[in-house]
């Protein structure tokens, strides 16, 4: 047990899609739990449900500021975790919960939802709706290496996680990021990655540049983060083969 990292999972206003994505690692999840991660609390997959002191906590969902309990749980998560990971579009950017106007049974007054980074400091983002099992897996393995690895592994994990740490500087995302940060900045080269990344098919390519159906966009942030011209680290990506192999080997 001693060399495992401890993990917690705080579930706020999210649809459980992030939980399912985590579980969809199937055997990989079992290996993770067996070798690397001691799951301390999680509403769906562990017996303990209340926030505890952990190395890493995943937070699913945005936080409803009209819900005292949720706000308290989020703050407690921050106090008790070394690293807080915002898991999924809602925790990172608000995502679909941005469209809330309240009025739902059985808490009609719950209407105002914020990405968790608007209330606490967040260390790492995993955007996407839902986030992918493979991305969760890769971050979990890297978090383990960061905390328990050799000097070399720590360096790799730091390089890998750095872009995901930088993403935490912003709590807003939508298709507009591709316009303001990529196209308007003269950086788009028409690869089409954003089209593939969008979970709601809101993006099409028009003569080599993305066009967003902005009414379809749910503000998950996947397109921008996946775009090779949002951020790109040569140090990490040029070693894709070795890193992929190391991750797969870790999960054997």
């Amino acid at each position, binding site marked *: 047990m001693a060399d495992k990292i401890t993990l917690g999972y705080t579930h706020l206003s999210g649809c459980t899609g992030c939980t399912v994505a985590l579980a969809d690692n199937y055997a990989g999840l079992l290996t993770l739990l067996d070798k690397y991660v001691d799951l301390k609390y999680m509403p769906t997959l562990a017996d303990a449900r209340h926030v505890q002191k952990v190395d890493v906590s995943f937070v699913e969902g945005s936080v409803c500021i009209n819900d005292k309990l949720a706000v308290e749980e989020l703050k407690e998560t921050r106090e008790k975790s070394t690293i807080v990971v915002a898991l999924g579009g809602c925790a990172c950017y608000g995502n679909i919960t941005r469209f809330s106007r309240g009025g739902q049974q059985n808490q009609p007054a719950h209407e105002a939802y914020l990405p968790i980074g608007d209330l606490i400091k967040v260390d790492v983002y995993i955007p996407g709706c839902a986030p992918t099992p493979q991305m969760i897996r890769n971050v979990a393995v890297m978090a383990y290496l960061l905390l328990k690895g050799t000097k070399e592994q720590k360096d790799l994990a730091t390089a890998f996680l750095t872009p995901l740490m930088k993403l935490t500087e912003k709590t807003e995302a939508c298709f507009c990021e591709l316009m303001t940060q990529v196209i308007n*900045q*003269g*950086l788009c080269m028409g*690869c089409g990655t954003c*089209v593939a990344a969008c979970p709601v098919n809101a993006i099409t390519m028009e*003569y080599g540049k993305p066009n967003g159906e902005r009414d379809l966009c749910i503000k998950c942030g996947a397109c921008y983060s996946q*775009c090779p011209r949002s951020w790109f680290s040569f140090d990490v990506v040029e070693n894709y083969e070795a890193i992929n192999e190391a991750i797969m080997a870790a999960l054997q």
Partner: protein
Amino acid sequence: MGAELGKYKSCVSARSTDKELLKCAQDGGIVSSLFAFALDEGIIDGAIVAATKEFAAKNPSKVIIDSTNFDMIEPWRPIPAIVNTKAELLAAAGTKYNISPNVALLKEATRSFGLDKVGIVGTPCQMQAVRKAQLYPIGMRDVGASIALAVGIFCMENFPYQSILQLVEDHAAMKLESVKKMEIGKGKFWVYGKRGQVVQLPLKVTHKYEQPGCHVCLDYVANLGDISTGSVGSPDGWSTVFVRSKIGDSVWAKAMAAGVFETQPIEKVKPGLELVSKLANEKITKNKATLEARKTFGVGKALRNPYI
């Protein structure tokens, strides 16, 4: 010669042994032959390539129909397509010097197109996109492990469709539909007509039509392809081939054993790797200068740098 050529296990000058295929190919037919072989061997079960609107109109199930107006005739406009046969590969062979967003099909290839083992061809930036998607699969669920063969093509720059229209129809004074082949080489942009006419434009004419996003690009020879290829370095009709990854090495060895390619040692051909290296360094140096200039573009305000 160093980092500008990327990591590679071997490099040769090569040409397909399939004469019929060579007639449709841009250079040595490396890309189309590799995919044809990989399809036959079950290494891939489909490949994402740059087809045309004519192809898309005839094969609507091979493309994603978006808001593209298929009634408008646009020769040489690439449409990404997923192909499964040699005949389809040939229909999409040859270089289109304008943007083909091939990565747009990467996820859908594994969904409605039902591929388990995807082949993809793309420019160096598209190879970067593919590898980022494998390491950081933020919006690419179950895609990374399905990428069975990524073939990169060398690329100095690319153009928007409207630029090609203007270059061919205004500068070269030819109708796009009468063009048989376009090529950039020996310091010129060449337009070959179907009736045998040849027009060459100096690159100083074409520069201003380039896609601006290309001016921050730091990869010339598709460093992140499993295999990457281009014409530069090899004699006419031959291609320079870098075999880079374990996957690339295994596929290339099998293709060689099956007699798909004839090769010559790269050290023996003219102009050889020296020219590849020179052009790669020129591109990287020029575009690094652009990135530098972006830092002080405004008054105390920088333009964004994507590289961290």
